[in-house]
């Protein structure tokens, strides 16, 4: 089993990540839709942020809100579910930024394992570039100065 995630910027405003998980789609889908399970893996322990609360009303039109803590301050991420099709498809919006980012996750079961594909569509190229610049989708171990340069470079509109 290929156990490494692949990640690609597939267009100016889209990112795609995929990975195979060793379990049936029904269980994997549960881990993405039950808050008490979701909050155990969404923020890996090695990350410098923590998930303080997690509310999810997983049905079409239902909303979610995640509150993250980082160095004494908190950050809210929220949106609503556009499509809920257990155990194969989940679509939600991210409404906290300017414009709406839509995340589509598909779960395809193959011989007891599940291929998970996460697709993020940002409202515009500028929005994705800004997300890159803030490092909001990445954690880095690079020295700070290089990190800043890097962020500056990737933040340039393409």
């Amino acid at each position: 089993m290929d156990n490494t995630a692949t990640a690609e910027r597939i267009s100016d405003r889209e990112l795609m990540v995929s990975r195979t998980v060793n379990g049936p789609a029904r269980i994997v889908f549960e881990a993405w839709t039950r808050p008490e399970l979701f909050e155990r893996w969404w923020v890996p322990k090695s990350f410098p942020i923590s998930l303080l609360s997690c509310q999810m009303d997983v049905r079409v039109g239902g909303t979610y809100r995640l509150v993250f803590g980082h160095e004494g301050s908190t950050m809210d991420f929220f949106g609503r579910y556009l499509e809920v099709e257990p155990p194969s498809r989940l679509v939600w919006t991210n409404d906290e930024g300017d414009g709406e980012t839509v995340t589509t996750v598909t779960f395809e079961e193959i011989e007891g394992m599940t291929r998970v594909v996460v697709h993020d569509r940002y409202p515009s190229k500028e929005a994705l570039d800004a997300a890159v610049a803030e490092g909001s989708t990445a954690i880095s171990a690079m020295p700070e100065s290089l990190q800043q340069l890097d962020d500056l470079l990737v933040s340039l509109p393409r």
Partner: protein
Amino acid sequence: MVQYLTADLDASFAALSDSTRRGVLEHLGHADASISDLADRFEMTLTGMRKHVGVLERAGLVTTRKVGRVRACRLGPRQLAAETAWIERYRDAWDARFAELDRVIGELKRKRR
């Protein structure tokens, strides 16, 4: 090595401090272009654009080569490496997330056996 790196950073930051040069990088992110294309697009003289491209080139952000009578410009290794580095970090973050998900899935499977 450290000095080299610092000089490199200074050149990069200096190169990026100008809005025309940032615009040139943006344009080259979509397609390669000649110096005269860029001069037209940014409404400046060939000489002025040559200077901007020279600054970007010295910072490793752009490479140029002579094709016949035209100097073709494209994004340099530095710019491409930065994008690659970012997507690598993004992938690493998801890898870590999926590793935790594996643990949760493993536990659920054991419970339901």
